[in-house]
């Protein structure tokens, strides 16, 4: 239809636009989440982020025991944009963390978990029995720590066992976070879905490195790290599009979102929500409400009442 006419007509029938979204069973007031590993360490900060516009915070990936992570340098700013990090999953361990967030009633918290064997995940989920948890996110995709993350995600049998044990341990929705590893991520997604996963987060950082030409050394203490931020957005977007074209599963897009247009691209590709990590380092926490507002303006312009009105639209063309 003639679009000028259309927009004139539709302005007569304006709907109320709202940022609420649902990722399967998970209901969020806003579709912009904090990605795992970003500032996700203290309940006070979670509260601040919630006031700053996040729909949910995803915690740092927690392990059964506290981890110190790698020595510095753990993060590197890439000349062409983005970051390479090898924080090494430093975290206080699931038991300590559970105690810290027990008082929480207000903030929607997604607990990110890493482990090597299925029982790790069972043990950790049990720690949170007394906490109000929105969902668990299984980190099957950290590209720079041995024996967890991608090394787990690349092993279909292990993925099956982990998802199964997690689903059997709790009724809270379980999300699998996938990334580009040594086996095809779409196989990991299929396995996770077959094992009962509730949603998919795509993607984690991509294995990368940086070398200093003067001192001729890899800069990160771990040599390899994960690339995040604007450089990976076109790759993350195609993953979301590929998953949503192949499966009927709620998806959370992650990777390089730094403006509302990026978020909308992910929705159009099939994501019901998005996560933001690196953009916090560039634009600080104002980035959440800037993006919320941009999405809302867009929805008003296109006359959408909720996020789901636009989920997957780019697949129609």
């Amino acid at each position: 239809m003639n679009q000028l006419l259309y927009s004139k007509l539709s302005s007569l029938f304006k709907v109320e636009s709202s940022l609420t979204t649902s990722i399967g069973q998970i209901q969020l007031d806003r579709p912009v989440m904090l990605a795992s590993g970003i500032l996700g360490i203290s309940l006070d900060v979670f509260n601040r982020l919630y006031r700053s516009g996040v729909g949910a915070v995803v915690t740092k990936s927690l392990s059964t025991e506290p981890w110190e992570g790698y020595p510095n340098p753990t993060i590197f700013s890439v000349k062409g944009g983005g970051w390479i990090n090898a924080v090494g999953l430093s975290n206080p361990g699931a038991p300590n963390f559970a105690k810290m967030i027990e008082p929480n009633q207000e903030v929607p918290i997604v607990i990110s978990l890493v482990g090597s064997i299925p029982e790790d995940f069972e043990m950790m989920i049990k720690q949170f029995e007394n906490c109000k948890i929105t969902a668990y996110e299984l980190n099957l995709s950290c590209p720079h720590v041995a024996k967890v993350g991608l090394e787990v995600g690349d092993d279909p049998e292990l993925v099956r066992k982990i998802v199964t044990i997690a689903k059997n341990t709790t009724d809270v929705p379980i999300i699998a976070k996938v990334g580009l590893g040594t086996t095809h991520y779409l196989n990991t997604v299929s396995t996770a879905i077959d094992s009962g996963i509730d949603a998919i987060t795509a993607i984690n950082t991509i294995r990368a490195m940086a070398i200093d030409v003067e001192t001729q050394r890899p800069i990160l203490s771990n040599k390899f790290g994960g690339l995040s931020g604007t450089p990976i957005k076109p790759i993350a977007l195609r993953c979301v599009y590929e998953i949503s074209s192949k499966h009927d599963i709620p998806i959370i897009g992650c990777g390089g979102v730094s403006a509302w247009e990026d978020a909308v691209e992910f929705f159009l590709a099939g994501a019901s929500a998005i996560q933001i990590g690196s953009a916090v380092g560039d634009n600080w926490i104002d980035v959440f409400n800037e993006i919320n507002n941009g999405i809302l303006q867009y929805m008003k312009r296109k006359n959408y009442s909720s996020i789901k009105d636009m989920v997957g639209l780019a697949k129609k063309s």
Partner: protein
Amino acid sequence: MQRNHNHTTIVTIEKVIDETPTVRTLVFSDNVMSNVLPGQFAMVWIPGINELPMSVMISKEPGKAAFTVRKHGPASTGLFNVKEGQQIGIRGPYGNSFDLKEGKLLLVGGGTGLVPMIRLLSFVKPADDVTVLIGAKSKDEVFFEDLANNMLENNPHKVIVSTDDGSYGEKGFVTDLVEKLVNESHFDGVYACGPEIMMYKTMQSAHSRNMFVQASLERMMKCGVGICGSCCVGEDLVCRDGTVFDGDHLSSNKEFGHFYRNKAGILEKY
């Protein structure tokens, strides 16, 4: 092209100055770092060893800056051992800076916490009446006393050293001196950097008397840019919201003065 402050720049150490047996100042050329504001810091990469947050020390020569480091764990010892001619990487400057008032000023520094205080001194107006308190464990560990006196040559000023063991200057904790001074007279601005307990007590002494007080906090830092979360104090991120905070703000922070987070992010008591 303007330098992106997040990109690592390699600089060569041109001079190493021994301040005390455990403290050294390393001088290098860098226009950006020579012009940072007091309270700002750099992330300093010692290739093959570690990366540390460091306040940026002034240098007398234009276009130069320095780090003044106390050797402690492996990381700071690695920096301490850097020789003239060796290369290190720097990024930054990061963080906000002190809000320098005019009039009667009190600067309280302990150990390498003196670094931002010295840079702050380089901004005082000739009419300001400046008192500098330097706290140290013992005579051996006193440094920057002469430097502070020289910098304040043309100001009404006092530089007072106190050592815990009384081996030099006044005996006792520097915070007892602070309490005494703020009790005797009003200061238009009180500035502190050093061990947290020193900053905490300074803040309490001044804030309870409604004086304007600021402290520059230290926390474990990995990214320096507000991504990793390791530097949080309550709901504040020291690298991004600080390092300088007002007494007003700090007095309502439940962690400041009491808790810090270790490398795993677990809250521990001071």
